[in-house]
């Protein structure tokens, strides 16, 4: 079966972000961008499925500006077979992303879609569940273990109380959590090979999807800073301050 993996280009997780002075958003010019870390885990899982003979082809899809090709190349260097870029400049929100992915799923017919559980820029945590709903498929979210069976998959989910195991009928949409695997680093030969792998260029109009945001960002500000604290000399002073100054323990 085919595996489809959506990958998003985001501000690198190591970058300390800066809010724009005009409060319209977060500065992304001249900032290091990389693949959303959760999407890397999804790509890794898809490539492992291929290596284990459970998948025939891994397709990486990105929706975003021209530079999102680099994100797709990263997935190709990790072992994905080909890419699709739906080119769109400007903001696009999860529902529109899910609609575009649905159109691609309809065209490609994958047996499973592996998504990162959330993107570390908008922290929305919506796309996988929305795609699953639009397709009328099963969903397994926040997955830390995935076993592909005959016509179904068994997924372990990271939930608030611990772990939950469910069975989902295939085809399914899964959103992956941190502990599913450790993504590989692409080797230099694979990075070179990735440059020759095909990337299909599309636009939202090709799929008849309106990418206009439904939510308007009024402003973006920095959170209120915490006041600088004090260093205490020892445990006795710490406990004394917590008792008498902060009054948070008795």
């Amino acid at each position, binding site marked *: 079966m085919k595996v489809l993996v959506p990958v998003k280009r985001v501000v690198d*997780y190591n970058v*300390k*972000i800066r*809010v724009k002075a005009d409060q319209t958003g*977060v500065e992304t010019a001249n900032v290091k961008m990389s693949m959303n870390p*959760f999407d890397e885990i999804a790509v890794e899982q898809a490539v492992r499925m291929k290596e284990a003979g459970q998948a025939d082809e891994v397709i990486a899809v990105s929706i975003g500006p021209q530079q999102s090709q680099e994100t797709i190349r990263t997935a190709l260097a990790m072992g994905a077979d080909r890419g699709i870029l739906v080119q769109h400049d400007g903001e696009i*929100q999860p*529902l*529109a992303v899910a609609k575009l992915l649905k159109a691609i799923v309809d065209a490609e017919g994958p047996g499973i879609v592996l998504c990162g559980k*959330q993107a*570390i*820029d*908008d*922290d929305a*945590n919506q*796309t*996988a*569940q*929305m795609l699953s*709903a639009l397709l009328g*498929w*099963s*969903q*397994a979210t926040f997955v830390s273990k995935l076993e592909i069976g005959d016509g179904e998959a068994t997924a372990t989910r*990271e*939930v*608030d*109380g*611990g*772990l939950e*195991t*469910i069975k*989902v*009928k295939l085809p399914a949409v899964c959103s992956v*959590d*941190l*502990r599913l695997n450790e993504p590989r680093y692409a080797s230099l030969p694979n990075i070179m090979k990735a440059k020759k792998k095909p990337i299909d260029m599309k636009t939202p109009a090709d799929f008849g999807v309106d990418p206009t*945001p*439904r*939510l308007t*960002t*009024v*402003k*973006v500000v*920095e*959170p209120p800073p*915490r006041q600088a*604290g*004090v*260093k*205490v000399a*020892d*445990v*006795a002073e*710490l*406990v004394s*301050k917590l008792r008498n100054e*902060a009054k*948070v*323990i008795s």
Partner: protein
Amino acid sequence: MSNLVIAEHDGAEIKPHTLNTIAAAQAAGGDIHVAVIGSGCQAAADAAAKIAGVSKVLMVDSAEYENQMAEAVAPAIVKLADGYSTIFAPANTFGKNVMPRVAALMDIQQLSEVSAVLGEKTYERPIYAGNAIATVKSSEPTDIVTVRMTSFEPVAAEGGSASIETVSGTGAQDLSSFVGQSVVSSDRPELTSAKIVISGGRGMQNGENFGMLEKVADKLGAAVGASRAAVDAGFVPNDYQVGQTGKVVAPDLYIAVGISGAIQHLAGMKDSKVIVAINKDDEAPIFQVADYGLVADLFDAVPALEKELG
């Protein structure tokens, strides 16, 4: 104008996060109705009817909602959604799992992890791990909102006397099924609602050393948490994780032990009222958010702390 709150419950009881979610609905103004969707959930519906400020409970009690599978619960919410200006659910793994499915079925763009309800379809929500706060205005006919629980004080669980209306189920689904769960039961308070949290990081070195934190926790009536590094290293289970991708906590007192203070960890705890950091590296970023910092070897400091607490 009226709001629908999707209750998180186990059939017998309403989960505390529902009370924070109702507080967010109160901030929006208008009537508050609570949906209790489950299998054998009469007791939970009765409990929901007693919550302060709730005027009506909609109970959908049918076998297909056992284990709260998203594929079953989402259509039930869609069925109830008609006429509401806003639908609220907690932004925990329950709400995060089911609400985007509801939103897509209704062709609505959801608002995730809302931290303030400003009125006139306008909301605040943290983005970039809480390093920026966005004010967002919706243009949807019904707003679908998941609520950052720590940003809203819970309403009282008692004091209301709402009517209960029974609604029929939406039918069985065969897309997914529940196999089992491993839930660790503990006598300590739940991480996201505890008044005091003590968390360990990579500096704890192994899982056994978390026993030191547990001893302190027992003296303080605290919950025990962990950084992602400690969870990834296998010291403690995933449900301990505090951070952008784990749990968000905002206790009166947060004690970070052997935690360096990565951005993604700070995202989960920096709204705590008082933060204490114990770390032997005096350059650790955690000290930049700590009200009280103690530069010390945790293997000396934590036993000393336990002793000092008496």
